[in-house]
């Protein structure tokens, strides 16, 4: 295979092409393989592994480290071909998995997958655990409608701030500790629910529990670190979708636990609900402990160990935040996500009362119907991520942008229709379709986010996630608090707002991949490397801090879609099919 050296002479990185099979444990065609197969990208572009050296403060030592590393890798590889490969899934040059196997818990990729979605699921369950028990709680604490509404808003408001902070925290201490800190420090808020006796206490408790929804950011960040570009949309969609189930699952599970305490264990109703709140709290603590003991930040190890060994780059807070804020794509996607995921949260809060008031369904039936909206997440959000990845194989990043825009706009139109109908049957059907498209749009958004930036991935994920819940708060305040609008008018207006807030996606443009309405730039400077290196200054590049971004840039070549011809990896010589 041909040796190729990088265009950028400053990097001093050695690259060597090799056959893709060395690091695999099982071949993709093995019988009984339950992994998800994507069309093999090997024919699309040459599979390369590269060795790069992360910085240490001392630039003089780089050449020495380089050779040592090279020799190490060489012997490692000789061992590989004889004994077990280090990973049980096929990996790319950054050791990120290229395939996913749902029923495996192998270290580190699949284990991280299951830990992250489960801890996020536990947090969602805790945040919405009080909702189905409200008929008992409102009698116990003597709540009015305003108290309940305010507590509902508070339960999602806390996560706006925590998602912003969590992005930065992930970049600094790693997703494992960020997740564990959040989960274990919000568990006391869940336990404190057992002791509330006033409306104010209830509101504060729900607000503090709401902080835990920032596990979303750690989940997405962790998955983006563990899984490679081709599959990241599907993986992010799966973890977020299955975790969002927690909202619907809470509506099913909490009443069952409450009845368990009430009848077989003969507790008073006002005591039984307090005991029931212990269950999501304990699940949260258990998931936090599992993340600490079983999890790993990156395929190569944990943040701290890698930092100690000098393999992980130390970066400065202010620069990371600066590059996140000045990137316009962050804000466009924050707005768009606010009107896909934020709408989902709004609907979760108001739709049960809508069925109760407008169609006079009894309370438990309204709850069951309302939970259908959240439970659609099991397929719709992963499907959105899958659709994003599938369209990327054919049309690259342009396909991802179109997928997002189409699904979110159709969702907005179904939302508009939802408010106009007044027959129960059609309303339910329209609600189901609305949920599919809105949640698929949320999944598709996170198929694009890993590509916006490499340096500030955590902060950007956090900002966009915060934008999601901010959209929920804004929509609830504008359309569902003022007595000027009836709920159905509010829903229709919300549908129109979704369509309007999706329009800015048309303005997104990557020079190397194009945008929705414009093809990629034909200039020689329109490369993945140039795009990701623009976040690093000359001095930082001399220190070698940008090498991880460079590796990442190579792996994103697939976002050009089918235009790439097999043999050319030199960006200047890309020909258009």
């Amino acid at each position, binding site marked *: 295979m041909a040796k190729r050296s990088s265009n950028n002479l400053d990097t001093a990185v050695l690259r060597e092409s090799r056959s893709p099979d060395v690091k695999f444990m099982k071949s993709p065609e093995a019988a009984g393989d339950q*992994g998800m197969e994507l069309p093999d990208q090997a024919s699309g572009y040459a599979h390369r592994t590269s060795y790069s050296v992360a910085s240490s403060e001392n630039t003089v030592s780089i050449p020495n480290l380089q050779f040592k590393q090279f020799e190490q890798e060489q012997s490692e590889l000789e061992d590989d071909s004889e004994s077990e490969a280090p990973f049980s899934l096929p990996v790319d040059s950054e050791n990120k998995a290229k395939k996913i196997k749902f029923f495996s818990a192998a270290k580190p990729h699949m284990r991280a997958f299951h830990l992250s979605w489960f801890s996020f699921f536990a947090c969602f369950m805790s945040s919405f655990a009080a909702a189905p028990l409200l*008929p008992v709680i409102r009698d116990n604490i003597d709540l*009015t409608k305003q108290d309940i509404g305010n507590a509902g808003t508070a339960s999602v408001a806390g996560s706006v701030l925590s998602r912003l902070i969590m992005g930065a925290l992930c970049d600094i201490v790693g997703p494992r500790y960020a997740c564990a800190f959040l989960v274990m420090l919000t568990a*006391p808020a869940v*336990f404190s629910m057992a*002791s509330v006796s006033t409306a104010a206490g209830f509101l504060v408790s729900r607000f503090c529990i709401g902080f835990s929804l920032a596990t979303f950011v750690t989940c997405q960040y962790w998955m983006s670190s563990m899984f490679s570009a081709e599959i990241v949309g599907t993986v992010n969609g799966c973890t977020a979708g299955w975790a969002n189930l927690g909202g619907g699952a809470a509506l099913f599970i909490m009443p069952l636990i409450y009845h368990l305490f009430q009848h077989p264990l003969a507790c*008073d109703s006002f005591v039984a609900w307090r*005991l029931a709140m212990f269950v999501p709290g304990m699940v949260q603590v258990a998931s936090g402990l599992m993340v600490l003991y079983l999890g790993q930040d990156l395929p190569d190890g944990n943040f701290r160990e890698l930092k*100690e060994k000098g393999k992980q780059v130390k970066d400065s807070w202010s620069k990371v935040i600066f590059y996140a804020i000045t990137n316009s794509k962050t804000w466009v996607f924050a707005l768009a996500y606010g009107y896909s995921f934020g709408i989902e949260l709004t609907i979760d809060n108001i739709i049960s009362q809508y069925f109760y008031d407008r169609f006079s369904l009894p309370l438990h039936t309204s709850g069951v119907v309302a939970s259908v909206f959240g439970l659609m997440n099991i397929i719709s959000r992963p*499907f959105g991520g899958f659709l994003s990845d599938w369209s990327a194989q054919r049309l690259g990043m342009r396909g991802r942008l179109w997928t997002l825009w189409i699904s979110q706009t159709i969702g907005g139109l179904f939302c508009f229709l939802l408010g106009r109908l007044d027959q129960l049957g059609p309303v339910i059907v329209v609600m189901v379709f609305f949920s599919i498209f809105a949640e698929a749009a949320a999944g598709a958004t996170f198929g694009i986010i890993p590509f916006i930036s490499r340096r500030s991935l955590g902060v950007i994920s956090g900002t966009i996630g915060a934008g999601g819940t901010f959209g929920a708060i804004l929509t609830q305040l504008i359309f569902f608090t003022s007595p000027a609008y009836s709920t159905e008018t509010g829903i229709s207006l919300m549908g129109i707002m979704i369509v309007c807030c999706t329009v800015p996606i048309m303005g997104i443009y990557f020079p190397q991949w194009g945008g929705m309405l414009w093809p990629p730039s034909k200039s020689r400077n329109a490369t993945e490397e140039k795009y990701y290196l623009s976040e690093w200054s000359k001095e930082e590049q001399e220190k070698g801090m940008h090498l991880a971004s460079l590796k990442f840039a190579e792996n994103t070549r697939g976002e050009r879609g089918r235009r790439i011809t097999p043999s050319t990896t030199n960006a200047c010589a890309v020909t258009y099919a």
Partner: protein
Amino acid sequence: MQLHRSWLFISSLLVVPCFCTATVGLRISILRLSSIPAVRVEMEAYSHLSIGLLLFSVMLCGHLSQGLQRFSELNNSLILEYVAQNGTKAGEGTISVTWKLDTAAVSAADAAAADYKNVHVKLCFGAISQVDRAWRKTNDLLSKDKTCPYEMGAQPFTPEGGSITWTVTKEIPFAFYFIRAYVTNTAKEKIAYGQTSNKQRTTNLFTIEPITGRHASLDIAAAVFSAFSVISLFGFYLGEKRFIKKG
């Protein structure tokens, strides 16, 4: 009746997509396209969705049997007297109610002819406690009326009257209450009533003091679990830091 026809239409609207999703799921399983787990997940979701829709339509069908009686059509033919302290404690305190037929409104013979069978005495929310609480709303349609959720007792009807003494149960919330007794016929439909308050439900109200539901043991358990959570987190964090420094 119009109401019943619309429920039938709605239930069938739900059963149809339900069967569609079930058959789609079955077809996919027969064709065995399950090499992609995403499709398999969708298949399972199809069956879950169809079961959910079936259950829901069954539940809706169950509501076909709602009555259409109105409170305004009932005769106010009972006189009620009660004894209840303000702030009666839930779980301990008692309320006694005495009811008898108002012969000025309805004579005993008319009562027998109208099939006065049973008397149900209920605890009802006063108007003050219904403000900002839509789940306690008064609705003239008896099937949707939520004014009187708690049953204190039931007795067979006699023109001389009767009385009951009820210990306040522990699920009663704090509110201003009055008492209403419904007379039901053999078909268990409400045909008459009597209440201790006026028509607007604003006079003669008394309060009940509820249990808090809090216990010292619950508070302690919550504190212990919270402490465990925080301490184990920091213990692990510092422990790992030290371990790495040593290693």
